[in-house]
């Protein structure tokens, strides 16, 4: 009898403990700006999707060190590169557990099969999963991984070797990107056997700090902290994405305490946020650049002096004041200052209309000329109001006799026509993918990108050779030197007017601790406590 009573008391105590812990569970609410497109990050390119999937649910072989654009070990503890730069051998972490979902319970830890499956699915058309769920892997192909990876070899359960077709130093940074998030091969096989392979992309198990519990489209996503996470359980117990598309409403929710962290505030609300004692307004320069590209294959922009003259004639600080309302900084290099190898010593063109006019006369246009400025029809962090920006430039240029007409098209049309080089000058920008300078410099200004993302249609041998050299060495110090040099060439040749880097603001509630802004634009909650 006594024993029974003791048991009962214990059971009651345990129940009490459970219910208190359920009530005491710390929940962090993130008011996200939209619904994820899906739960397989390899299919998509939108940051909203990555926040909901790869950033908080998944891991990769290498990860970005939080708050920087540098990489650090993730599911691979280390890697070796062969001297010719063609072979990368990854040593995998042992004892990494996968989440458990409603209809899948893993029986083994993460190993080499999962790594090979993840990349083989995306690159190998023969892989049975390749065409499941539409099967388009935009980032994998976009970053050229399909032609770069020649072969993957499983050396043993915890060692994988990637053999490349050419030396490519940014490969490591690519592996830290969202599309490289590691899936469970065991789960994939189980679903394939059950005849429901597409379930893998709806309800994947992963190895990251949070596991998905529920998703209600356009409403919310619920996660719980994964207790067996290999870096230790997250400090918060529950994570909720409360999907709130309107920025003013996100702010109202933050004020009312209905959310703890919100992205993308309205620039007009920033002053009020700064003054609010309950809110901590964090800020950092974004990993992006807004620019005006001259079509260097069209006269008169074939002449560098003309491009330099227009650079001198543009008052960038006036643009920052009028267009960015404090949410931007003048850009002098094509890469943002948060990125490694940013060359601080480059001297920008000052605002000097007199010198500009002189230079223009030297180039053979003493009375100026007529041209056009293409203005984007959409808002972007690197350019919140392209039309206004174009108007200011139009006025600046008219002071040295250059008459510019402002042109705009629907967004898809705009991108397509500017790719073909139908413009004289075009406003556009870029947000970095992987924190590697190559992802700005080569993607936007390399000779291979002419007719594509290289809107200046600019192919400069000196510049391009520096970039090619930097691709072929994995020595970071040497790469840094090469990129710094390339920025000097870029400034001298002036294929773009570099206009601005946006400043990213993230208001969070005062009680939220440990949150860091990710320069790559993601939102991570592993280190956050409340």
């Amino acid at each position: 009898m006594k024993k029974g009573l003791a048991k009962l008391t214990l059971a009651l105590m345990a129940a009490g403990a459970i219910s208190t812990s359920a009530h005491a569970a710390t929940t962090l609410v993130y008011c996200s700006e939209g619904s994820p497109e899906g739960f397989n990050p390899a299919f998509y390119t939108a940051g909203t999707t990555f926040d909901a999937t790869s950033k908080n649910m998944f891991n990769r072989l290498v990860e970005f060190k939080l708050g920087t654009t540098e990489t650090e070990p993730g599911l691979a503890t280390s890697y070796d590169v062969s001297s010719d730069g063609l072979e990368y051998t990854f040593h995998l972490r042992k004892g990494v557990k996968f989440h458990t979902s409603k209809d899948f319970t893993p029986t083994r830890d993460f190993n080499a099969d999962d790594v090979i499956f993840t990349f083989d699915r995306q690159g190998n058309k023969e892989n049975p999963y390749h065409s499941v769920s539409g099967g388009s892997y935009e980032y994998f192909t976009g970053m050229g991984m399909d032609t770069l990876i020649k072969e993957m070899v499983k050396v043993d359960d915890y060692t994988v070797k990637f053999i490349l077709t050419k030396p490519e130093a940014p490969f490591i940074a690519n592996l830290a990107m969202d599309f490289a998030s590691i899936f469970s091969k065991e789960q994939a096989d189980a679903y394939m056997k059950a005849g429901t392979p597409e379930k893998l992309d709806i309800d994947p198990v992963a190895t990251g700090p949070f596991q998905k519990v529920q998703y209600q489209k356009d409403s919310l996503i619920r996660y719980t902290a994964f207790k067996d996470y290999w870096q230790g359980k997250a400090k918060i117990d529950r994570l909720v994405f409360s999907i709130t598309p309107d920025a003013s409403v996100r702010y109202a929710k933050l004020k009312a305490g209905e959310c703890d962290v919100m992205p993308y505030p309205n620039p007009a609300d920033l002053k009020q946020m700064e003054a609010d004692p309950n809110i901590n307004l964090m800020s950092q320069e974004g990993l992006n650049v807004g620019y005006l590209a001259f079509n260097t294959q069209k006269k008169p922009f074939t002449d560098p002096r003309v491009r330099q003259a227009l650079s001198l004639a543009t008052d960038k600080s006036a643009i920052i004041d009028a267009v960015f309302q404090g949410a931007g900084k003048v850009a002098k290099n094509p890469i943002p200052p948060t990125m490694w190898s940013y060359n601080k010593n480059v001297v920008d063109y000052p605002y000097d209309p007199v010198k500009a006019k002189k230079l223009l006369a030297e180039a053979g246009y003493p009375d100026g000329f007529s041209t056009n400025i293409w203005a984007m029809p959409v808002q972007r962090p690197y350019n919140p109001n392209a039309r206004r920006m174009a108007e200011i430039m139009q006025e600046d240029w008219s002071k040295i006799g250059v008459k510019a007409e402002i042109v705009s098209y629907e967004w898809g049309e705009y991108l397509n026509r500017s790719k073909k080089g139908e413009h004289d000058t075009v406003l556009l920008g870029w947000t970095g993918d992987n924190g590697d300078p190559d992802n700005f410099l080569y993607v936007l200004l390399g000779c291979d990108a002419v007719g594509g993302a290289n809107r200046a249609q600019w192919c400069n041998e000196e510049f391009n050779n520096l970039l090619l050299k930097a691709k072929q060495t994995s020595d970071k110090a040497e790469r840094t030197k090469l990129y710094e040099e390339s920025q000097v060439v870029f400034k001298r040749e002036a294929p773009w007017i570099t206009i601005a880097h946006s400043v990213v603001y993230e208001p969070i509630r005062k009680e939220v601790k440990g949150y860091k802004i990710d320069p790559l634009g993601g939102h991570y909650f592993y280190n956050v406590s409340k």
Partner: protein
Amino acid sequence: MFQFIFRRLSLVIPTFLGITLLTFTLIRLIPGDPIEVMAGERGVSAERHAELSAQLGFDQPLYVQYYHYVTGVLQGDLGNSLITREPVMKEFLTLFPATIELAFCAAIFAILIGLPAGIFAAVKRGTVIDHSVMTFSLTGYSMPIFWWALLLMLVFSVNLGWTPVSGRIDVVYWIDDVTGFMLIDSLLSGEEGAFSSAVSHLILPSIVLGTIPMAVIARMTRSSMLEVLSEDYIRTARAKGIAPWRVIVIHALRNALIPVITVIGLQVGILLSGAILTETVFAWPGIGKWLIESIGRRDYPVVQGGILIVACIIIVVNLLVDITYGIVNPRIRHSR
């Protein structure tokens, strides 16, 4: 009666075909290639573009695409979203309960306030009460919804803290998706306080969404009542000494309600087709926001399918209104 219903139904088929053709053509007339829009600044190579076009069927002539679309629709297949790759019908069914829930509450709000206000204004015609009711309803009718929503939110949610800002339920409740109706699911969950949280989340969006229908109903009721109140039989009833409230409620209101029912029916149809602004402001996961976003992304299957379903709902609601009207008013039923 059957002949009347049959006549109405036979009109539905050409309307339906017209809608498929219109949505199919109109969304393709908006400049912008969905593949380019998807790729953004990153761009997509010409080969990849061709590959994707072939995969999505965009490389075929328009009439072939239309043929595939219509034959799909006839088999109940509205295609898959280009963005999420989910079937359009499935996405619609996940979002529609939220729209119904909100539309229902907004309609109740509109009727409960609009109808009595209209009656009252008609009875007290020309007085201060009449003028203020009419001024209020005119203001309500011309209210910019976005601004109105933010105003209510700032006052009642942020400053007074009486209602939650947005969403469908407080995040502390982890409610399973059973029916998709939060009011029902929160009751089913058995969690204490969940239902009242769901109700409190409905208050502001219902008021915002119900404001315009309320104004319309109030004005319609007033003018219809005024017309009926000046009829001879009302004067007769009054002359016979029947109690004034009886004259109004039993004799006048019943006849005055006929046009009001039509208006309510039409308003409900509009409410069910999704409320873009209200849904956006209150982060309400309904079909209005879904459709607008898909237009921006040039998600052809969602736009075509979504608009088609919404149009069908409006057609059905109209048909029901017509039939009810026919039942209430025999003159309509018998006219040829």
